């Protein structure tokens, strides 16, 4: 489907602004494009507006001006429920439903979309294998019976279950210990190469940005101050970019 219509997974922001009721602009003047299969990493400090951009993409927030195109179509013309089912969403491990088993968590969107039961079962199996968890062992467990890394893998599997062309990830690996984090980052990079999904990945960790990003978008005080490849990032003549680059040493 995505190969027939390569434009399907394109994301485009056109001069997007989001202001809260008090009038303060959380993000403004945001324009960029992502093409099919790209992994854009949004890098920035806390409060720089990265998460706001993600939430604007799946309409958890509505832009106060400008427009956002998902698969070539303005998000405002999408039914928000359909839009969100078309976009996978991964947040920190706490986003799993604690009262659902692993298999129900992963099968959630397919079952909301009324897939037949056998197809959902097969898909759960496939997704668990994809993220490196043995279906026999883990399918019937509850999230609290898993380690942090396992929960995060389930989170990724859940977001991929309905095969959405676009994936949004909000600091998905932020709560993990450094070793697990590094393992899961490498696995995730493999996964991205293999699946070719279009992704926006939010982080404040520049190492993560360099490891995963095909491009890095640097956010500062609600603006996208640079959108470059990792190589170009190191050569940027910008204080915030240098501040992040110094963390690499």
């Amino acid at each position: 489907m995505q190969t027939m219509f390569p434009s399907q997974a394109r994301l485009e922001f056109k001069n997007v602004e989001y202001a809260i009721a008090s009038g303060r602009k959380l993000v403004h003047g945001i324009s960029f494009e992502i093409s099919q299969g790209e992994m854009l990493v949004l890098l920035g400090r806390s409060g720089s507006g990265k998460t706001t951009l993600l939430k604007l993409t799946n309409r958890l927030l509505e832009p106060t001006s400008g427009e956002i195109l998902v698969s070539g179509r303005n998000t405002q013309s999408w039914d928000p429920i359909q839009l969100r089912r078309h976009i996978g969403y991964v947040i920190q491990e706490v986003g799993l439903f604690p009262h659902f088993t692993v298999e129900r968590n992963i099968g959630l969107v397919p079952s909301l979309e009324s897939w037949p039961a056998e197809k959902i079962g097969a898909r759960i199996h496939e997704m668990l294998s994809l993220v490196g968890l043995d279906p026999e062992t883990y399918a019937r467990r509850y999230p609290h019976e898993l380690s942090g890394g396992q929960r995060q893998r389930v989170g990724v599997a859940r977001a991929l279950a309905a095969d959405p062309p676009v994936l949004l990830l909000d600091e998905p690996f932020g709560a993990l210990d450094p070793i697990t984090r590094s393992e899961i980052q490498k696995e995730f990079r493999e996964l991205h190469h293999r699946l070719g999904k279009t992704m926006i990945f939010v982080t404040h960790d520049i190492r993560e940005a360099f490891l995963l990003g095909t491009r890095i978008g640097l956010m500062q005080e609600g603006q996208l101050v640079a959108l470059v490849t990792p190589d170009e990032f190191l050569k940027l003549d910008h204080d915030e970019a240098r501040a992040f680059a110094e963390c690499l040493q």
Partner: protein
Amino acid sequence: MNLLNFMWTDRLEILRLSVEHVFLVFISISIAVAIGIPVGILMTRRPRIGKPILVFANIVQTIPSLALFGFLIPIPYIGGIGTRTAVIALLLYSLLPIIRNTFTGISGVDPAVREAARGMGMTNGQILWQVEIPLSLGVMFAGVRVATVIAVGVATIAAAIGAGGLGMFIFRGTSMLDYRVILAGAIPAAFIALAADFGMSLLEKHFQRERTS
């Protein structure tokens, strides 16, 4: 005649009044659940109307129970002497813990879980039924449990307005200055309260089983 003999002699009367008592509580709690849970849920959706409702329920709770029964008697349609008035008074008493716990339970659902649900494209109805209610059942149920135990106690006063129940013995004993008669009402009432509390605590545990995370 000691207490046990007295209670044995009057066992049929005690049983009849106990059944009446349980019936009063059961009807009132059922209606309170049917009203309180939707109201509690509504309050989480419309915080602006939530506050006044909570204040109202709080005020009702502070009215001395005997006075509340008395106040209701002259009110047309819902008042008068008998079971109906008693049910309404008990219902009013039971609402606060049920509404408050429903509100607290639903508001207490981890915002990250709610946001994940929204972000994955669940509708508001799906989030309510599949996420928020299951995750707050334990807290909601604790409210019903508290309301039930309170109602068992307050229902003894229903006898004062002719609604029967174990309060009959208590009022009779008080006017006769006979502690045996009082205890013949008070002991079964206490037993019913304990049994209800125990039975519902088992159910509550059942609901909370999967909540740990």
